[in-house]
């Protein structure tokens, strides 16, 4: 039984956390995530969850305490944004290296400097190589659904990796949307009772050592196991999505395509901008332009084979990056999509559009411009410029 209600993204994430009912949450407030922590602390104060809530003094300590709790054999969560994630950075890597199934909502926000509180993907793209599973959400419904699925994915015995679930700061976190929610019982039934899959610190009769020193004689084996766990996450993500669809009727994959099958011009995008792009696709389709869209959901593990198969027959592809990587060659999503396309049957030109940094608005005209460029690239077979900046004064 699903109830339809109107919630902001933050409310939906907090509600999902309540329904997950973790044993320990350690968190610190940061805009635009703050509401999640506030709402959750109300659940704690009113006895609506069993959670022990640690009001830490920083995000660094939030992730540290969450690691300590997870290594003790309980379900542990935290939430963050932007500078908070950056401050956690060191421990984010350690959580993954210890293969602790921590689940963390991240409300995407730009990184300093200059300081900016609005949404872009610089924060989580900075953590892309940390060994966490990364799932991006387009809207409030997806944020809610992804967080619940993330618990199952992270805790799967064949995975055991931490997972972060993203939504765009303010655009989703503070906007009210209709969504369908599950009952507490259904969520609990879906995620199941937490069972530690490794010996835990609190099993004092069977002591364990967590986080030893490993030098050149063993360090690589640890890292290799992490890589194997990440590669093994892909089928688990799909299996969990399948079971979630049976429960809710809402289907998720590694990515979502829109009118892509016969498309000649395709855009690859993450998160909330997909909604804007979909509207332009419809408009162009009415005009007879074969436009399509691929919205990436799972960025880690990166679905390179699947992307190559889905995009290989297009005539031109544009990647929209809501972060730069300062490599001199485009944003993080672009370089990975373009690398994936090396294995495509046919290799269409792939170009990059960096947009929306620091919450800069992206509108229908911007997306129209991208498709216009793609049409030109498809006609000539070559791009004038590979890396472009959308909606910036130059």
């Amino acid at each position: 039984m699903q109830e339809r209600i109107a919630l902001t993204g933050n409310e939906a994430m907090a509600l999902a956390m309540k329904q997950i009912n973790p044993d320990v949450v350690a968190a610190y407030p940061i805009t635009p995530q703050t509401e999640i922590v506030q709402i959750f602390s109300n659940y704690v104060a009113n006895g609506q969850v069993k959670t022990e809530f640690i009001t830490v003094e920083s995000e660094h300590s939030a992730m540290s305490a969450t690691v300590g709790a997870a290594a003790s054999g309980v379900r542990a969560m935290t939430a963050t944004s932007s500078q908070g994630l950056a401050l956690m950075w060191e421990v984010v890597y350690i959580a993954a290296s210890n293969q602790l199934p921590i689940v963390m909502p991240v409300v995407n926000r730009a990184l300093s400097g200059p300081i900016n509180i609005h949404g872009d993907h610089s924060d989580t793209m900075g953590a892309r190589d940390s060994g966490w599973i990364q799932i991006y959400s387009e809207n409030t419904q997806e944020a809610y659904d992804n967080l619940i699925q993330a618990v199952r994915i992270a805790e799967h015995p064949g995975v055991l990796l931490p997972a972060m679930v993203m939504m765009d700061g303010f655009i989703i976190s503070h906007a009210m949307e209709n969504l369908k929610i599950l009952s507490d019982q259904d969520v609990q039934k879906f995620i199941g009772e937490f069972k530690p899959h490794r010996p835990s610190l609190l099993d004092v009769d069977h002591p364990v050592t967590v986080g030893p020193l490993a030098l050149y004689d063993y360090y690589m084996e640890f890292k290799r196991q992490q890589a194997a766990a990440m590669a093994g996450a892909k089928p688990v993500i799909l299996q969990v999505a399948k079971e979630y669809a049976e429960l809710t009727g809402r289907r998720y994959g590694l990515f979502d395509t829109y009118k892509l099958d016969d498309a000649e011009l395709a855009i690859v995008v993450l998160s909330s901008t997909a909604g804007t792009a979909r509207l332009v696709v419809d408009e162009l389709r009415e005009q007879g332009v074969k436009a399509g869209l691929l919205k990436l959901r799972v960025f880690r593990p990166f679905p390179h084979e699947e992307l190559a198969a889905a995009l290989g027959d297009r005539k031109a592809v544009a990647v929209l990056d809501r972060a730069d990587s300062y490599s001199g060659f485009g944003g993080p999503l672009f370089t990975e999509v373009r690398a994936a396309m090396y294995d495509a049957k046919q290799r269409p030109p792939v170009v990059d559009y960096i947009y929306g940094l620091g919450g800069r608005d992206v509108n229908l005209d911007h997306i129209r411009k991208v498709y216009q460029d793609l049409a030109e690239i498809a006609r000539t077979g070559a791009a004038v410029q590979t890396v472009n900046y959308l909606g910036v004064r130059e």
Partner: protein
Amino acid sequence: MANLKQLSEHEGFFTPGHRMCAGCVAPVVVRQVAMAAGDTPVVVANATGCLEVASTIFPYTAWRCSWIHNAFENTSATLSGVETAYRSLKKQGKIDKEVKFIAFGGDGGTYDIGLQSLSGAMERGHNIVYVCYDNGAYMNTGIQRSSATPQFADTTTSPAGKVIPGKVQWRKDLAAIMAAHNIPYVAQAAPSHFNDLIAKVQKALAVDGPAFINAMAPCPRGWRYDTREGIEMTRLAVETCYWPLYEVENGEWRLTYKPREKKPLVEWLKKQGRFRHLFTEANKPLLEEFQRRVDQEWEKLLKRCGEA
């Protein structure tokens, strides 16, 4: 209080076979803490540092208890998480054992980079015992000064040069800072006075709430003393009143040991290579200044403890 023979019969949670340097006093401190804990099950969290790297070189460990190392500066936060998980499981009836939580960190990981995390954990009132093994520098990385380093000590980042005579500043008074958190128990201890140290650890483990113990742990590499003389180094630090032994129990300051005769500071300084530069005619005023400050700090402490 058990005698040393009885205590030494206890295996404890820290085994021989670790790879700390010969003459290092940190493992002596850990062994004494382990003796004090007795058979109580403990979970240990260790900050990055000598003790951590030398005791858990994968696939070996010197710890007979559950042990976690997270990073350098977050030991207190990590143990907060462990202790909170324990409270959660206890509340849910999933665990019934009494478990104690002990953190070990060097002075770098405690006085400096770990201070925020330590302060946070103390303020939140987690039921943990934090033991700082204070060897007064970043020994693991090649003897750089920390805020625990004594004034005038020669370290690799506060070298005794032609213009600057070693570390310029006085050491941070961490035990007093911890006492200002109004936590149930704070103590300063030294392994030379093992009965005192063990009694303090037992008190710290018994209180309901956070406890902090600062234990002096000389380093033969950094202090440049004869490896046989580690314990003598702490004894002299106590007898010269450079390292007084005291405790702060629920806000009450108390000296736990008062030297019968306060020894001159030079007796402690002259045995250490890091103070060699002070023993020149030109630097005589520095020695006097050092002695003056030790006297001043000692008087301050006596007043706090109601002894003056």
